[in-house]
């Protein structure tokens, strides 16, 4: 266990491992995203109340689910970076922020587009949507805070603290539709039974959720690779890599 932990702390090992994972994960992710989207948009029946506008669910829900999960990944990486001062955890934390911000942006924009034909408005300041907007600003805050510091060690500490403090927002987002009166519907998929979505619509949605998790992983690894190279630019292995002309 500890040897694996140490291996994860090794930039060249992590760089090569991420390269070999991406070689198969990236094509599978793209195929799953295309298959899930085509299935959801063209091959499922319309919702009996919302008609065809509900088809936005196949990107809106996966983006929101993974944006929330991504925040936990960022906060855990931040905690590891703070406690064990592991540089690769710091790299992972920093890599999560722009991806999480983009996924939250997708969730907000597609939700807004979905809201217009369904609720008659693009935006409403209710608990779910406002707490998602706060999540978006938290992600952007981590990106901005890192850039604001000259001293990158200090920057990593500040970002780790911000991401840990921000975790308080995640259960609020999850529970917002139950705690407050909201235009946003409660969760359709529940682990504890009582899923309120027809299987013909559920399966493409599950495929898209898995595909978005894979997308997050791919983007995370790609961001980490770019970050590792920049941080390790003075080391011999990066210079050998640059000499060979192509990334590993």
């Amino acid at each position: 266990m500890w040897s694996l932990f140490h291996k994860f702390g090794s930039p060249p090992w992590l760089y090569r491992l991420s390269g070999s994972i991406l070689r198969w994960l990236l094509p599978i992710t793209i195929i799953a995203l295309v298959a899930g989207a085509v299935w959801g948009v063209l091959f499922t029946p319309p919702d009996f109340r919302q008609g065809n506008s509900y088809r936005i669910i196949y990107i809106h829900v996966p983006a929101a689910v993974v944006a929330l999960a991504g925040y936990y990944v960022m906060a855990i990486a931040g905690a590891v970076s703070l406690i064990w001062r592991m540089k690769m955890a710091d790299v992972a934390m920093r890599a999560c922020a722009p991806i999480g911000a983009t996924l939250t942006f997708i969730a907000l924009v597609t939700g807004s587009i979905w809201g217009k034909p369904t609720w008659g408005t693009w935006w409403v300041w209710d608990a779910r949507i406002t707490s998602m907007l706060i999540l978006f600003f938290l992600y952007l805050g981590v990106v901005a805070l890192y850039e604001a510091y000259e001293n990158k060690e200090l920057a990593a500490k500040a970002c780790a603290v911000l991401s840990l403090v921000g975790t308080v927002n995640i259960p609020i987002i999850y529970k917002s539709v139950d705690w407050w009166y909201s235009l946003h519907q409660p969760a359709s998929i529940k682990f504890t039974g009582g899923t309120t979505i027809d299987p013909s619509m559920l399966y493409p949605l599950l495929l898209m959720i898995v595909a978005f998790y894979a997308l997050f992983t791919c983007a995370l690894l790609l961001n980490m690779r770019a970050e590792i190279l920049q941080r390790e630019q003075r080391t011999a292995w990066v210079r050998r890599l640059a000499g060979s002309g192509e990334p590993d």
Partner: protein
Amino acid sequence: MYFESMAAALQMDGHGAFVWSAYLITLGAIVLILYAPRRREKRFLRQLEGQIRRSGGKAPGAVKEV
């Protein structure tokens, strides 16, 4: 396919503009998060390669072996 024609799929009984614009924006965002770090990595390696070549194979700055 649920729709009878491609025109019907584009139209989606009046919801087409909402659904397709949401998917297009998402596609753009996905391309961005996958392409941007790849471009950053390649550009960095190219710059470093140029730097090494200009300094005659010797890298400016301290080089440590890992």
